[in-house]
């Protein structure tokens, strides 16, 4: 009798092998995952992009799937994303949106909730939620954690306090917890024109400079733009006594320990002052860190360190979000949407996030950020500050009209910095103009008593 493998045996074997492989499914078994169609990511060029690109290449190597990257200058990415979502057939399958402009994509209904592509997809609990900006409730139009999952963060860009650790050691200074302590330290190190105690972004920018720089002061002094945004109460409270205290402090900082021409400093000049050694402190986003230790780009290699942003006397530290979210638009074929989501699923695993860090970008998983073993590497000395900041991050606003309010903030705050307006007048003007914007757009809003 022939002892061969019958067809029935084979099919039985195939079925059990298939069952076994399903059981063995895990993020590490990516190479056996179903092949995905190529898809396109639209993203802007930035210091952390290099790390992102390397991680994409690692994904391609791991899975054999193809990813196209459409790289753009900072503003150009928004233009292209907007154009793509507003046509019938989108060109881009994964949109990398910045925390300052993603609102229009949420409000405009251009994105697919991720669970409509794959009901089984879960955002890993270790991924930082960044003030719940990944969630969206279409009815209340707010970032409701019980709402739908719309995006996955790819970069948690927040400001940190960059300071000269070498000068701190020389002068036996302690890392400041409050703004008052920061001012004291800055005054100690202030020695113009050789070195400025602190440099601040006082310039009028587009989209923003001075408002982004001042926001941590505002929130940590318990000031707010709206009374209760999460509950839909958009009463303007920017001209409250708390906000005035925050603005006065900001101006005082500039006068007593800052750059003589703060009103002309944009982000590029802050970086310039730091890397040339002309500034002892600055509030700067973590995304700019990689330049600081590069001998071709910095004269203070190894001398800088980062701490979480200081807080007001009675408030909490409030690093303001300038983060990046990855969303999937509605107007692209299902196959490409699935491919994009598969990438995001791979991206959020611990292994991928460690690769991301090693490639030179800040990770977005809390367990990687808080990994003390990783902190030991002097290259990652900023990580502890960032890990501590995760639970305090604050969004500037969640509405598309925020862009208009941002322009008002930039103009008036800049005028306060250069002395054209007093802080009370500036804040009152901001309040009036923001109120007009919201009224025009039909929000439930109001004003508080103006400052004297």
């Amino acid at each position, binding site marked *: 009798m022939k002892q061969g493998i019958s067809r029935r045996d084979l099919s039985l074997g195939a079925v059990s092998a298939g069952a076994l492989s399903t059981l063995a499914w895990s993020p590490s078994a990516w190479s056996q995952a179903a092949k995905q169609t190529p898809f396109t990511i639209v993203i802007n060029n930035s210091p952390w992009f290099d790390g992102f690109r390397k991680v994409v290449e690692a994904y391609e190597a791991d899975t054999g799937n193809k990813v196209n990257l459409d*790289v753009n*200058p900072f503003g150009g990415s928004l233009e292209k994303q907007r154009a793509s979502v507003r046509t019938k057939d989108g060109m881009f399958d994964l949109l990398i949106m910045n925390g300052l402009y993603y609102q229009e994509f949420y409000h405009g209904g251009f994105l697919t909730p991720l669970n409509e592509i794959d009901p089984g997809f879960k955002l890993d609990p270790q991924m930082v939620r960044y003030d719940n900006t990944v969630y969206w409730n279409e009815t209340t139009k707010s970032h409701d954690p019980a709402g739908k999952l719309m995006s996955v963060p790819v970069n948690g860009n927040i400001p940190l306090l960059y300071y000269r650790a070498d000068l701190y050691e020389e002068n036996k200074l302690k890392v400041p917890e409050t703004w008052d302590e920061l001012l004291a330290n800055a005054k100690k190190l202030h020695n113009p024109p050789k070195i400025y105690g602190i440099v601040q972004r006082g310039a009028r920018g587009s989209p923003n400079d001075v408002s982004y720089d001042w926001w941590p002061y505002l929130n940590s002094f318990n000031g707010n733009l709206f009374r209760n945004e999460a509950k839909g109460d958009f009463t303007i409270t920017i001209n409250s006594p708390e906000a005035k205290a925050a603005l006065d402090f900001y101006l005082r900082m500039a006068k007593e320990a800052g750059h003589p021409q703060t009103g002309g400093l944009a982000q590029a000049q802050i970086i310039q002052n730091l890397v040339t050694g002309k500034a002892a402190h600055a509030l700067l986003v973590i995304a700019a860190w990689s330049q600081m230790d590069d*001998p071709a780009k910095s004269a203070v290699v190894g001398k800088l360190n980062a701490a979480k942003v200081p807080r007001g006397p009675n408030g909490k530290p409030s690093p303001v979000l300038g983060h990046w979210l990855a969303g999937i638009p509605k107007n692209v074929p299902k196959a490409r949407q699935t491919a994009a989501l598969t990438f995001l699923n791979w991206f959020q695993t611990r292994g991928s996030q460690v690769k991301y860090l090693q490639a030179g970008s800040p990770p977005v998983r809390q367990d990687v950020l808080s990994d003390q073993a990783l902190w030991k590497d002097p290259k990652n000395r900023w990580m502890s500050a960032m890990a501590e900041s995760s639970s305090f991050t604050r969004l500037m606003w969640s509405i598309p009209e925020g862009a208009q309010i941002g322009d008002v903030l930039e103009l008036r705050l800049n005028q306060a910095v250069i002395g054209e307006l007093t802080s009370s007048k500036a804040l009152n003007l901001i309040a009036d103009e923001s109120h007009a914007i919201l009224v025009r757009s039909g929000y439930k809003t109001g004003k508080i008593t103006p400052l004297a």
Partner: protein
Amino acid sequence: MKIIRSNFDFEHFFLILVACFVLVPFIWIVAAGFKSQISLLQGEIFFTPNLDSFREVLFSKTTEFFSNACNSTVIAVISTFLIVFSATLGGYAMERMHCPRWLIHTLLGWSVVFHMIPPITLVAAWFPIYRELGLDNTYSGMVLAHMALHLPMALWLMANFIHDVPIELEEAARIDGCSTPYLIWKIIVPLIAPGLAATAILMFIFSWNEFTVALNMTAKQTSTVPVAIAKFAQGYEIKYGEMAATAALALIPALLFLLLGQRHIVKGLTTGALK
């Protein structure tokens, strides 16, 4: 004799003075390609040159410089040629073919108005059409866009230069039995050669440096040099060195075109001139 000599010195003095004002920033810009970023930020005047930026732009793994330069050249050359050709014919038609005055005024007025439309809105209006017709990310789409942008100016310039050609020459040629194409090619063109060359140079430069449309209507395959340069202004870091290196390299074809254009185009156009 004395008057002429002092005039001569004054001219050269003035020209050299202005040349310095032009060259110092220009050299500063080109030198940026040879400096390290920290050296640039510190404003060092004496520095040790290095080729890192150039290496990054030309040979790095992610470089697209050659493809961008190629795209820019193709688009610029084709659109310049088409624009100058259409503008010359159109200018001649306007000046010599008894076009009604209202048409001319409308056309000129329209070119003024068109020039004032912000580039962003142009792109926003064209983008859906381009998507429909499949013109986005193609050479033809870009050439068409550049023609639409710059033809009005070229038309007006050429019309002006043709206007200056004395009508008697043409009448003489007509009596001899010249056909219009021959007339234009052999008589008008040589006489407007300096203006034609100037227009061609300007159209080339405008197309070469055009940014807004190129940014939005192209993807990797047809991206041009200005887009590549803009990508180095990254928001959190401006890579001055790479920007300058890219621009310096891109200058080479532009300069070549300029020098060749001055010598050969003008020469070629003026041979066979009426005498």
